[in-house]
């Protein structure tokens, strides 16, 4: 087992264990902090796959942006001294069975598939080539995403404080 495999199993364990805690923890703030560990582990997996720019973007956008936004949502919508979550007791067993069947079928399909593996040559740093692709092949999607993000943020701001005028 090489050092690469060892680091992969480490990050995969961090990701999956904290991911399990996100969905099973009874405290909403604790779920948010376990989500931080999950996102961090996923960013480690990106580094192992040679995607350094995606990994850094994951940390900056997900952990620095989306997670903070979710924590603000938690603080604004629940009594912070009493953050226990109402649990649906009746639906737990059918949900576990359904998700188990789904997971089993996905896993068996991807274990049975004969993947044609051809390692791609990922350059030492991907930032230069990603930037070049963004302004050549993907320039239309890039501009549309910028406009979409602007519209979404304006819409979110105007929706969140609609009744104050």
């Amino acid at each position: 087992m090489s050092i690469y495999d060892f680091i992969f199993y480490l990050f995969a364990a961090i990701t999956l264990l904290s991911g399990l805690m996100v969905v099973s923890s009874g405290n909403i703030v604790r779920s948010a902090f376990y989500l931080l560990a999950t996102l961090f582990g996923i960013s480690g997996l990106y580094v192992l796959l040679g995607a350094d720019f995606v990994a850094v973007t994951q940390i900056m956008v997900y952990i620095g942006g989306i997670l903070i936004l979710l924590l603000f949502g938690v603080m604004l919508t629940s009594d912070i001294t009493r953050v226990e979550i109402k649990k649906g007791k009746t639906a737990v067993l059918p949900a576990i069975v359904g998700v188990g069947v789904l997971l089993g079928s996905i896993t068996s399909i991807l274990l049975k598939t004969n993947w044609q593996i051809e390692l791609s040559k990922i350059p030492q740093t991907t930032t230069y080539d990603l930037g070049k692709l963004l302004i050549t092949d993907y320039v239309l999607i890039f501009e549309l995403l910028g406009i979409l993000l602007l519209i979404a943020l304006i819409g979110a701001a105007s929706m969140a404080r609609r009744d104050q005028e």
Partner: protein
Amino acid sequence: MFEVGLTHYLIVSSFLFAFGIYAIVIRKNAILVLMGVELILNAANINFVAFSRYGNFGLNGQLMALFVIVLAAAEAAIALAIVLNIYKTFGHVNVDEIDKLKE
């Protein structure tokens, strides 16, 4: 078996996907449902980057992952604005008790 390859990443991503679905099905708090959606988007992203590495697609898969991250940011902002409005109207954010579109 222990040699890490494409399937290992795909299995990690399918487990994350299952966790996300489970959170969406089981949780009553709208913020926790949003966390489930984030888990699912991350599972898709792992697949994009893994196929980009093992399938000789160059950097196209990584670029798709970046686009998904941008869409996730927009989705989180909009969804939280909606959740705040629900809280103002109903006084709670339990998704199973919200059955009116207006007061």
